[in-house]
Every structure is written in C-alpha cells, then in structure tokens.
C-alpha cells in the first residue's frame, strides 16, 4: 500500500518492550468503584439511580444530556453507596460528580442486555443510536462521543473509515494487545462502524513496531476485501488523526476542519471493539484495556479494567512500585496528563497508567533558547515553536495566535527535542487557555451587551407604550371635554333657542 510522507515528528524510544509481551489479564474486581459522570467531552451525565439502589452490571447509572454527551453504566453488579463528589481523573485534582458503587462480587450482567444477530441489517441511524446508548466515546484518549462521529455521514461525503492502530505513544501496548488477541472483534466493530458511516473502505494503520498485531489483523482482514492493513513507519505523532490520514490518503485536513472534510473518519481499535460488544451483545462500555507501565512499576501489564477502579488497585495488582515514581501519568508520556493521586478512578479515555522515574522523565533545567531550530524541524504542523514561545513569554497572545497557535496539536514534539529544556507545550497550553478564557469573556461581554440592549429596548417600548397610552388618554379626555363642551353649548343653544 502506498503511503505518503508527513512533515517533522520525532523518534522517541518506544519502551513498549516493558509490557508488549504481557497478554491482557482481567483485573479482579475492586470492592468499591467510583464512576465519574464526566468521562467524555460534552455535558455531564445525569444520575438515574438513587443511593442504596441495587444495580446489575451494565445497568444505566446516568443518562446523557444533549447531543454531545454520553451515558455511564454500572461496571459490575452491586449497590449504589453514594452519589456525590470525588477527585477527578484529571491533573487539576478537582472533584467531579461521581457515583460510588459497592460490588456484590457476583458481576452479573443485567437481564435486559441483548445483542443483535445481524447489526448490518440495522439502519445506520439505529447503529449510531445504540453506540450512543452504550456510552461509547473515543478511547484513544480524546473521549469524544463516538455516535456523533458516526453521524458525520449526514453532513459530509465520506469514503473511508480509518482505524488508528498506530499507538505512537511510548510505553502503551493496550491497542497492540487488543489487535493481537481480539483482531476478529476489532474488525467486526470496524465493519459495523463502516456500515453506520455508509463507507465501503476500511484502512487500518499499524506502526511497524507491532508486527504481531499487523499479522493478526492482516490474517482476519484477508476475508474482507474492504479492509486493508497499512504498515506505518514508526514516527511520533503518527497517531495524530490528521497526520495519520495524510499518511494514508496523501491529503492534509484543511486548517480548523475535520478529517471528514476530506472524506475520512478515524476511530480507535478499542472503540471498534466496544462497538462490537455493544452491537453484537448489547453490552455498554463498562471496562477497557489499559497498559500499566513505567520504570517504577514492578510488573508492567496490560489489564482489562472495570471503569471506576481506583488506580491504586491497578498499581497493587502490578506488584506496586519498585522505586517512588517522580511522575504518575494517565496516557502516554508525550501527551498524557499528570495525575495528582492514586485515589482517582479509571475512566473511558485512559489508555495507560505510567509511573515514571526521574531518569525516564529527564526534566532538565530550563536554559535560554539557542535558536537551534530542532523544534521547527520536529513540528509536524509546520509551526515555529521557537517564535511562538518568545511571543507567549512576552505575553503577546495575538502574536502567538498569528503564528498559528490554533493549528498546534499539542503533540509535544518540540519540547521533546528542545536542548534547552524549555517547556514549550506548557507555554502553548497556557496561551490556548488564555484564548479560551478570552473567548468566554468576550462571549460574556456580548451576551451582557445583548441583554442590556434588550432591556433598554424593552424599557423604551414600555415608555413609548406609556406615553402613547397617556397621549391617548389625553386625546380621549380632550375629546370628551370637547364633546361635553359641545353638548353644553348645544344645551345652552337649546335653552337660548327655547328662551327665544
């Protein structure tokens, strides 16, 4: 298969060897699960259960609110012990609305759960509706509700579904293992999604550091002429969907646009697997495969983890820490988020838990920029991180935006290669945050202005109405008076006449 070149990128040591050889294990059930109601991009789900209620595995716990949202389901059977606030799976460590579930140890699926013998007989809308009802979100980390992406066929002319099995982040092997062990299911899910999207072509991109996954998927794909496996060169960020699509179809996604603009929709293998489970068996998304790895983990592993499991439980399962890690990360080391504590629960979008040592993170002391242009060469988006950072430092937000801040995908390639250890990603995240805050402030301002204008218009109208009413009354009074006067004079006339 012909592949196209992308610009920039870096070649980090992939360190997948730590966990790539370990088959996916089922994690034993923790006694208590904390299921956040926000595990996706979009509106918070609303609880539909009460405290003390008994729930079956797969039962709806909280329903989605609006189009961009996702429901959450019970990861196991048990009793709801609380609906309240709990630390989020997020760098901030802030609380999020969370349902706490005490397991009864039986792990029994709800009896209402039923699959579909032939999902391909279903209407595409119905497939998307079931994907939405199963609470499936982008499991590569983006956590965008998958059903919304399946519905893109309504607005775009699509031709290809890409399954993003590049897994370009170092350490992570969960997609690798899933594709090796469950190739049938992953590709079945992919075919169901292709049916929902109305496309006939499926491309599966897998980096060359996963030959077993490539072989396993190719073996299954042989029976389906619509599916091709693309063997991708190893380069970070190959898994950026815009860059993956460019590699596969040779076209760049227009700035500020979606890959759907060039007819392609991208989904993750774990998402495809979840779609398979949801459509074939009716099972909602209640667990996921995670890689637990890093230099500080005694036995790096790939685990199938019930959502809501406290991450301390995963660490214990993997034999605990060999040394105290300097950094605990959700996701990969390039784009992952630091986690504030081991209390936080696992969520739909968390594909990895890394406990890294100081030697691995290699945070050097920040030195002045020497304009070596390593960042310019590494940037896959053709930006000038060196210039952007200079403007960001000077607080020149407009300058950073003009240099393409909003075209930055935040991949961190620039900071990875910077010999001066300048936290470039931090600068750009900060600038993006400021832009968002500015946008909100502006929106607030226009909204306030709109309200004020509406109010003054309303007041004006009332005043006018009042004036008119008064004028009307005046006119009426005057008319009445005139009539009275006329009547009076008339009377007088009559009297005078009579007198005459």
């Amino acid at each position, binding site marked *: 298969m012909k592949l196209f070149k992308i*610009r920039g990128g870096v070649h*980090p*040591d992939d360190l997948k060897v730590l966990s790539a050889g370990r088959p996916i294990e089922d994690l034993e059930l923790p006694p208590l699960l904390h299921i956040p109601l926000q595990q996706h991009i979009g509106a918070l789900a609303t609880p539909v259960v009460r405290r003390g209620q008994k729930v079956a595995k797969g039962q709806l716990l909280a329903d989605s609110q609006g189009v961009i949202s996702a429901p959450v389901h019970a990861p196991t059977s048990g009793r709801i012990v609380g609906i309240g606030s709990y630390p989020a799976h997020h*760098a901030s460590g802030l609380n999020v609305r969370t349902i706490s579930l005490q397991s009864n140890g039986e792990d029994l699926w709800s009896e209402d759960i039923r699959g579909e013998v032939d999902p391909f007989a279903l209407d595409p809308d119905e497939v998307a509706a079931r994907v939405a009802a199963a609470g499936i979100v982008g499991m590569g980390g983006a956590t965008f509700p998958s059903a919304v992406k399946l519905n893109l066929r309504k*607005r*775009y*002319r699509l*031709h290809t579904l890409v399954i993003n099995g590049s897994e370009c982040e170092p350490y992570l092997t969960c997609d690798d293992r899933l594709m090796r062990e469950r190739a049938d299911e992953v590709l079945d899910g992919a075919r169901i999604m292709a049916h929902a999207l109305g496309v006939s072509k499926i491309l599966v991109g897998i980096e060359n550091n996963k030959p077993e996954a490539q072989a396993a998927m190719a073996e299954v794909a042989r029976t389906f002429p619509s599916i091709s496996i693309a063997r991708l060169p190893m380069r970070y960020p190959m898994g950026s969907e*815009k860059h993956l699509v460019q590699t596969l179809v040779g*076209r*760049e*996604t*227009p*700035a*500020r646009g979606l890959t759907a*603009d*060039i*007819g392609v929709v991208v989904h993750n293998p774990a998402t495809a697997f979840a779609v398979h489970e949801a459509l074939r068996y009716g099972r909602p998304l209640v667990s996921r495969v995670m890689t637990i790895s890093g230099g500080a983990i005694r036995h790096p592993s790939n685990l199938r983890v019930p959502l809501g499991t406290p991450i301390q439980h995963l660490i214990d399962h993997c034999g605990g820490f060999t040394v*105290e890690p*300097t*950094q*605990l*990360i959700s996701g990969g*080391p*390039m784009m*992952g*988020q*630091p986690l*504030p*504590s*081991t209390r936080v629960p696992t969520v739909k979008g968390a594909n990895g838990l*890394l406990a890294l040592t100081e030697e691995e993170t*290699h*945070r*050097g002391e920040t*030195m*002045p*920029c*020497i*304009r*070596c*242009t*390593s960042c*310019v*060469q590494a940037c896959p988006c*053709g*930006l*000038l991180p*060196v*210039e952007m950072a200079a403007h960001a430092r000077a607080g020149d937000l407009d300058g950073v935006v003009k240099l*393409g801040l909003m*075209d930055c995908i935040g991949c*961190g390639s620039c*900071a*990875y*290669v910077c*010999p*001066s*250890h300048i936290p470039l*990603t931090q600068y750009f995240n900060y600038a993006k945050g400021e832009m968002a805050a500015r946008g909100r402030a502006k929106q607030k301002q226009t909204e306030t202005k709109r309200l004020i204008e509406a109010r003054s218009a309303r007041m004006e109208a009332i005043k006018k109405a009042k004036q008119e009413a008064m004028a009307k009354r005046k006119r009426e009074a005057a008319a009445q008076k005139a009539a009275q006067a006329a009547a009076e004079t008339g009377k007088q006339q009559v009297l005078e006449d009579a007198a005459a």
Partner: protein
Amino acid sequence: MNNAWLIAGPYAHERSSVARTMGLVMLALVPATLFGLVQFGWPAVFLFAVTLITALIAEAACLRIAGKPVRPFLTDGSAVLSGWLLAMTLPPWAPWWVGAVGSLIAIVVAKQIFGGIGQNLFNPAMVARVALLISFPVEMTRFVAPEPIFSAHAPGILEGLAITFGGAQASTLVDASTGATVLGHMRTELGQGLAAPQILADSFSALRGVLGTTSGSMGETSALLILLGGLFLLYKRVISWQIPTAMLGTIALAATLMHLLDPEHFAGPVYHLLSGATFLGAFFIATDLVTSPVSARGQVVFGAGCGLLVFVIRSWTSYPEGVAFAVMLMNATTPLIDHWMRPRVYGRDRKGAPLEYGDDAEKAS
C-alpha cells in the same frame, strides 16, 4: 509522590542539552584545530590557549556582574566555543593580546551586552574578528608559512613563548618565512596589474588548499578536515544542509560566472572554495544556531546571501577576505528573513488560508 512537576508534558526527552550541542560542535572542530596547532607550532598553541581562557574568564565575570548563575552558563560550552572559533580565524603567530582582546570583544560586547547566550544578533567570533581586523590590521594580516611543530625550522617552546608573549618578531627568532595568504597575494598582485591565471600558477595549489598545508589563519587552512567536521555535524543533525550548500554553491556559481566572463581578473571556483575561510565559514560560522534563520527556506536565502557577499567582498573591495563581513551582514538580515520566510502550516496554503479541495471531498453542505 512528588507532584512538584504538575506541568504539561512531554514526560520524556531526547536527552539533548545546550552543552551537548556545543560539545558536538567542538568535537567537530578538533581535527582541523589539531592540524592547525601542529602545522603552526607552539605560538599557535599558546595563542589558542590564551583566547579560550580569556573567553571563559570574560564570561564568568559578565555572569557574575549580571547576577546570573555562573556554573550552568559557564558549563554550557558556548563561551569556549566562541573563543575557539575566534582562535581558528586568527593569524597563528599573532601576539597574545590579539587573542585576549578578541575574546573580550566576542564575549562582552558581542554576546553578554546583548543578553547572553541565545540573545546576540551577530556571531560573537565574527564581531571580534572584524573589530580586530579594523583595529590592528598589521597584526591581523601577518601570516607565516606552515612549519610543523617539531620540524627543524619550527620554533621551540621558549621561542614560541617569546613570539606569543614577548612581542618578538618571528623572523628574528627562527627563519620561518612570513608570507601572505593566497587571497592576500591575489589582491596585491591583481592590484599591480598581473593576470589572475598567472598569479594562481605562482601561489595556489588545489591540493594544498584541500589538505591545508598553506599559510593562513590557525584553523582555516584545511578544507578537507573542516569538511569532515561539517559532515559530522550534519550527521548529528546539529546543523542542516541548507546554509553550507547554499553558501558554497553561490560562491562557486558566482566565481564560475565571473571567471567565464573575464578570466584575466577573476579566479575560478576551485580557488574561491579552497582558500581563506570559505569552508570554515560555510560549516561553522554561518551555521551558528543563534544568528541564522530558523526556517529551511530562510536558511537557503541566508546561505546564498553569505556566499554572494563573500564573492563580492573578495572581488571588488579592498579586503582580500570577506567571510566575517559577509556573515555579519547576513546576521543583520536574520530577523527579517525569519519574519518573511516561514514554513507552510499544516492544512493551510502559503498565504495562511485553510486548504480547499474542490472535488469529492467537499462538504455535502
């Protein structure tokens, strides 16, 4: 659990550092430097040492005065490298104060006054070289013929000390022949009405230019060893190919063109490429990270500009050599080049508008 680093990723690093980058450049300079030190003997060794040590002391003093942490900046290697590059361009038997004053100018005036590492607009070594050339034209143009360090005519350690520190005239101590460089010779002879081919036949040999066994600055003579270092830097991705290729290509092109038009007054490309600081300039001076443009296209323009200016200065001004002036002039244009020549952003055309495809991929409204 230490959460002091709740800062955005990546939580991995290529393991590069400023000190490593500077170290690689110095490593690349080693062959040409050793060759120069051996070829020009003890005086060159002493001058080299004085220049580097002065650079270090000046850097430390400036950091101290500016209230910056001394150790991390002193050990980043940038001061030593500036001194080193300057030493490479000095006449090898120049008195010690030439190296010392040069290093002071490079570090204090050209680097620290601008704000230290990464902030300077002009290449520090070239600022120093130009300042020295203008201030001390005699000392800066007195070259010697190569006398390998332990050969019969070479000065010994004591004589070397006398030459570098004692102000002794070389000719009074040893019978080393003082001589002009090939470029200097060409300028003088052309001025006396001789034809270029004849001058070349007398003074220039391509083989000596490649090997470096000719009179010239301490580390500029051997094109071969400098090329070796340059290729090493390219391989290690410390520099990229654009600047050296554009610079050498432009010099060669301009020289070929003028040579074809008027062979009596203009020497050919081989002469221009193999004499003076052409190779050192192309691989080590013009490629200075801080003072060259950041985009690939910008670097091509910058390199070509350097090459053209070198040729113009050598051919039509009163200076026989122009690398230092050329690089400094182009340094001044770097901010402008950076402003106008930016890479194309992903998903946008050259003008910055989002890409548009007019076919199957358009929105179905």
